[in-house]
């Protein structure tokens, strides 16, 4: 569904890191479906990036090799090594795949297109428990000094376990239905999505506050000058 903030050149807040296609929020807002996401990919790839990335690189081309003898590099390297160490030293009983499947099932059941408060609260609890279990019982085979796809997957699933919980938190917070988010409590008599523009005319940007702390919500208001926001109607 996308949503990463980008400037007009499609660069994120990290210099030199571009987000294109469905991953960004550029033309259709952070929340759109099917064909508009495809259009975003085509437009970014054909018309925007061939010019903007070149313009960024043209300034970088004279930059020499960047030294790895910096405190920033050393810290990043140390963090990565520690994380790898942490994942591989658990030597638990359950495979990475089995955790991925269990997380997928929770998300599918409780955080699909239609979701409700009760299910989301349950899902948050379930994911927290699953995450605890993951960090005490996952089994990552293989070595850390050679190609190890299982380690890569373990790292991704660790991320999914955090992101999955956040998706549920966000869905629980948004007490309305809009776009791909259908809260069963908020529907019209005919079963259509019921918006609440007084309260939710904002993009939710969640700030990560560390492993076990709640993410912090930053509201970025949506302001329309020309367009009048209205309920989508298929009638």
């Amino acid at each position, binding site marked *: 569904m996308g949503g990463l903030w980008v400037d007009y050149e499609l660069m994120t807040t990290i210099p030199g890191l571009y987000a294109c296609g469905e991953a960004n929020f550029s033309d259709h807002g952070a929340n759109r479906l099917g064909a508009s996401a495809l259009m975003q990919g085509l437009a970014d790839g*054909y*018309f925007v990036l061939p010019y903007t990335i070149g313009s960024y690189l043209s300034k970088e081309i004279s930059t020499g090799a960047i030294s790895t003898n910096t405190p920033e590099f050393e810290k990043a390297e140390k963090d990565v090594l520690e994380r790898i160490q942490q994942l591989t030293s658990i030597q638990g009983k359950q*495979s*990475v*795949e089995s955790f991925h499947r269990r997380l997928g099932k929770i998300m599918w059941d409780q955080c699909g297109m239609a979701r409700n408060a009760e299910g989301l609260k349950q899902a948050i609890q379930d994911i927290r428990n699953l995450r605890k279990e993951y960090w005490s019982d996952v*089994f990552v*085979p*293989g*070595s850390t000094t*050679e*190609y*190890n*796809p*299982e380690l890569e997957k373990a790292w991704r699933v660790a991320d999914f376990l955090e992101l999955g919980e956040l998706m549920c938190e966000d869905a629980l917070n948004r007490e309305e239905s809009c776009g791909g988010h259908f809260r069963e409590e908020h529907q019209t008599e005919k079963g259509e999505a019921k918006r609440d523009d007084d309260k939710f005319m904002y993009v939710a940007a969640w700030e990560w506050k560390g492993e076990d702390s709640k993410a912090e919500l930053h509201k970025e208001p949506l302001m329309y000058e020309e367009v009048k926001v209205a309920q989508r109607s298929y009638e």
Partner: protein
Amino acid sequence: MRLKLKIWRQGGKYKGEFVNYELPDVNPDMSFLEMLDVLNEQLVAQREEPVAFEHDCREGICGTCSLVIDGRPHGPMQGTTTCQVHMRHYHEGDTIVIEPFRAKAFPVIKDLVVDRSAFDRIIQAGGYISVNTGQAQDANAIPVEKEKASKAFDSAACIGCGACVAACPNASAMLFTSAKVSHLTLLPQGQVERHKRVLGMVAQMDKEGFGRCSNVQACEAECPKEISVSNIARMNREFLAASLASEQE
């Protein structure tokens, strides 16, 4: 269905050898790669290291999957990638032999995963158009004959998987390189760099350690995109013309 697998393992505790596995219950609707996923789950459950293999799109478009299956790159079927092979083509009790793509220029990274970055370097040596060809809409203003457009398109269908190299007794990369050369050389936008391109790409191909073409044509037979060997003939003509031209300069 019960299957026996004989898989090449290299890395970790294996120096490079075939290891036998058995899968008791393979569903005929599984894809070949899903069958390997199931094997890997079984191995992890036994606290063994899973078999490393490459995959991405799993729908025949990215060129990431590889594998030589029972002696044939991308398996038994014509015009398909490994990820498009399904287990319904096998029978109860079959033994399947699975190896990596073997070539000097494709060193094994682990088990069934080989390093195909030599292909990237061939592309870097000329597989692009760097002259300004205008904005996207200008493409419509440059007429291209239908016959040429179709030929260029057929060549562009190459997904860069490397099966042609694995199939070739000389481990030659001629089919891949010629498909890329043809694709760009057939189009008007590719004319300016025409000579430089073919000379650069062929030189890089040799430098990477790929063999020479001796017209065996196994590449065309195994190519999942059915790229024709007529591309190789075209590249030879292009190479000759470019060599003559460059000596005149």
